């Protein structure tokens, strides 16, 4: 019997620690600092055999993949990127616990060749936990460019573990890495890590504690346990207490008390970390040669990207360019898809006629369900398939941390966490994903603020609505250059969304979520040329398909439901007409009409169906029309009394209103609280109503609307 994960009573995460493996299968854990290209190594090893998506927030859930080498199968577990294993954050705890209590047969530590000094700290920590370590020094191509030379053989001898040099993005060294892992689990290579030797005072206690702990430590290295007994980690000590007989515990305590350790635990931890880093400095001095600095490319780029004058304007410009490419690029494929689906619809109708199917069945299935589906796919797929890859390129380049850096002072003023900016960026893709990404914020107060305000950045489900409406109302009147005015207005709306995010964050942290901003450290990784293959893979397969599938699953039944509402008559008015009539007075107050408000309410399952539902309702045929041009859409809207105010407020309401059902469910899951879920719907809706009332008032005062 030994210390197992069960015994640490952290049951919420138990399931991810024990990986079910078959005979002849080995579990390999992949650890490493953030930004070391760990995911690239993971992808190069596993190819496409992955089991989880590539969202931030996977930080907490381990991604898994498989690969084989010679006659063996391997299960690869991608641990969250961490700087250390002293559990100062959730990520570190997950990584540490997996290495301690999971059933990994070997641990691969991925290190960044351009920043080896910082990375080796983690390597030494992992080596203290287990002997079965392979060090993968990644990004050697970049190191070469930066004129950094690494003496891998010398380093291998010094550390006592196998080392593989890799440039995972171009596949260099991946076979060697597989071979090294294979050799290790097969016992062909026996690593004998050279641990950091601490000062005599500590080493003496360690030599006394190790024999006692040996018996109870299970898979964990007793030296590591002994170290943790003297430098802290109350949680671990408490769980140890349940395992070690009382008399042994007493003798452990006596040893620690009698050895006249003069420092407290904090000071001991300082010394231990210092000792590791001193050792690391010593070996990097002898085995890593950094030839005289050449001009540092990254710093020159940063002179502009993060400068006082250009930083924020460049950011807004980048955003606008992305929207411009998305809007102008999505047009043509959208039309193609729409033609294609229209053709299929004709065939479906023909088939229904041929089978003598009743009208209502044709209505529900073809006019309701199928048409809504076709709309969602043809309107959403092209912009997503353009937007997500562009966004992933920015992510790959290392631009997002710079955005967080530029915006940090604003978030600080709003008493929010600096990482909230990153979760917001994720929200552009999908708010539910943004809410999950909030896991990267450690402090519960700030995580809640980020969760409650994520909805203020428009997600992909709302972009089509915003883009369509601004195109309809601005293109013909704008006159110059197709797509420029809509781009400006969508960018403007996004800026409004960000301002409101900051405002609401500030209000929340002064009222129901009082507190001071917690600390945060942000690493600005080196700029890297994005790899188109990975960009396309993660953005199209993982993100686009994920979001599209969700939309389809929700839109299909909603389409059928709306058709039914539009075709059941009470008196001479359909149910849709009755509902819209009921909502109309309230909707008028905020510059909308009953149909628009109803579309937003019926669109709760997914924002992307708001516009199709609205059109169905306006045409009171209960089914989506096929508009072949922007012009016909403009006619429908103008015929139903749309003004500039209606357009503006519909866009504002879309930007600010309640989150979609998926996001709400995600918020419920993440916060575990009905109260916060309800608030996350009420707060944005309140803002939407107030702001739309104000614009309505202004427009009416000036007689514009």
């Amino acid at each position, binding site marked *: 019997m030994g210390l197992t994960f069960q015994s640490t009573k952290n049951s919420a995460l138990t399931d991810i620690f024990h990986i079910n493996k078959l005979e002849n299968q080995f579990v390999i854990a992949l650890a490493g600092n953030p930004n070391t290209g760990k995911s690239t190594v993971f992808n190069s090893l596993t190819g496409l055999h992955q089991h989880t998506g590539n969202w931030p927030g996977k930080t907490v859930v381990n991604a898994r993949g498989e690969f084989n080498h010679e006659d063996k199968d391997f299960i690869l577990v991608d641990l969250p990127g961490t700087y250390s294993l*002293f559990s100062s954050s959730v990520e570190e705890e997950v990584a540490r616990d997996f290495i301690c209590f999971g059933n990994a047969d070997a641990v691969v530590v991925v290190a960044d060749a351009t*920043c080896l000094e*910082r990375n080796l*700290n983690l390597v030494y920590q992992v080596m203290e936990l287990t002997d079965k370590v392979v060090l993968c020094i990644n990004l050697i191509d970049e190191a070469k460019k930066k004129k950094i030379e690494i003496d891998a053989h010398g380093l291998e001898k010094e550390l006592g573990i196998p080392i593989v040099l890799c440039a995972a993005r171009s596949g260099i060294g991946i076979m060697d890495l597989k071979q090294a892992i294979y050799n290790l689990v097969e016992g062909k290579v026996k690593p004998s890590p050279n641990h950091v030797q601490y000062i005599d005072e500590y080493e003496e206690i360690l030599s006394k504690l190790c024999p006692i702990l040996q018996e109870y430590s299970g898979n964990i290295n007793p030296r590591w346990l002994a170290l943790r007994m003297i430098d802290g980690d109350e949680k671990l000590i408490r769980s140890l207490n349940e395992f070690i007989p009382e008399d042994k515990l007493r003798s452990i305590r006596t040893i620690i008390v009698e050895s006249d350790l003069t420092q407290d635990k*904090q000071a001991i931890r*300082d010394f231990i970390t210092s000792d590791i880093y001193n050792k690391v400095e010593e070996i990097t001095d002898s085995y890593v040669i950094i030839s005289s600095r050449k001009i540092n490319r990254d710093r020159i780029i940063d002179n502009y990207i993060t400068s006082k004058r250009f*930083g924020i304007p460049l950011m807004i410009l980048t955003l606008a360019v992305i929207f411009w490419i998305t809007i102008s690029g999505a047009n043509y494929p959208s039309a193609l898809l729409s033609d294609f689906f229209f053709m299929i619809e004709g065939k479906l109708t023909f088939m229904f006629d041929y089978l003598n199917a009743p009208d209502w069945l044709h209505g529900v299935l073809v006019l309701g369900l199928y048409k809504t589906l076709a709309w969602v796919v043809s309107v959403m797929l092209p912009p997503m398939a353009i937007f997500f890859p562009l966004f992933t390129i920015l992510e790959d380049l290392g631009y997002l941390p710079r955005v967080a850096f530029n915006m940090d002072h604003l978030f600080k003023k709003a008493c929010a966490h600096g990482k909230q900016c990153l979760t917001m960026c994720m929200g552009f893709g999908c708010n539910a994903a943004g809410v999950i990404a909030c896991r990267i914020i450690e402090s519960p107060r700030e995580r809640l603020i980020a969760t409650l305000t994520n909805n203020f950045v428009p997600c992909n489900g709302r972009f089509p609505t915003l883009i369509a409406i601004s195109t309809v109302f601005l293109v013909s009147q704008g006159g110059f250059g197709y797509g420029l005015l809509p781009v400006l207005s969508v960018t403007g709306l996004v800026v409004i969304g960000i301002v409101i995010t900051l405002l609401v964050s500030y209000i929340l942290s002064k009222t129901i979520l009082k507190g001071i901003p917690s*600390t945060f450290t942000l690493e600005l990784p080196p700029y890297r040329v994005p790899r188109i293959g990975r960009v396309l893979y993660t953005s199209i397969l993982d993100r686009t398909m994920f979001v599209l599938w969700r939309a389809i699953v929700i839109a299909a039944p909603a389409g059928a439901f709306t058709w039914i509402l539009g075709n059941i008559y009470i008196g001479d008015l359909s149910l849709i007409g009755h509902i819209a009539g009921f909502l109309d007075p309230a909707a008028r107050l905020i510059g909308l009409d009953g149909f628009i408000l109803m579309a937003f309410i019926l669109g709760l399952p997914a924002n992307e169906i708001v516009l199709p539902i609205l059109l169905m309702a306006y045409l009171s045929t209960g089914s989506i029309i096929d508009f072949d041009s922007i012009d016909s859409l403009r006619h429908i809207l103008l015929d139903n009394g749309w003004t500039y105010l209606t357009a503006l407020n519909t866009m504002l309401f879309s930007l600010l209103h309640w989150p979609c059902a998926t996001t709400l469910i995600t918020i419920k899951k993440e916060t575990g609280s009905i109260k916060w879920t309800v608030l996350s719907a009420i707060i944005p809706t309140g803002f939407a109503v107030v702001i739309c009332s104000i614009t309505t008032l202004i427009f009416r005062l000036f007689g514009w609307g």
Partner: protein
Amino acid sequence: MLRLHMACVGSVVTVEDLASTGILRERMLALGLTKGAKVEVIRRGPSGDPTVFNIRGAMIALRNEESSLVAIQEV
């Protein structure tokens, strides 16, 4: 005692001591802010805060609240 947030952009300093506690202290140690570590001040953000430091070869941004907890010595 000099603190890290007072160091001028472009200067290189060494870490003397940390005044932080708990999680932040652990994080700072993990990043390599141990006694004697060299830190280069690289640039300040758009409003003068946060500041980017070169800590053991990595670019790390810290807000003034955090960097003021690091006691330093000029080299």
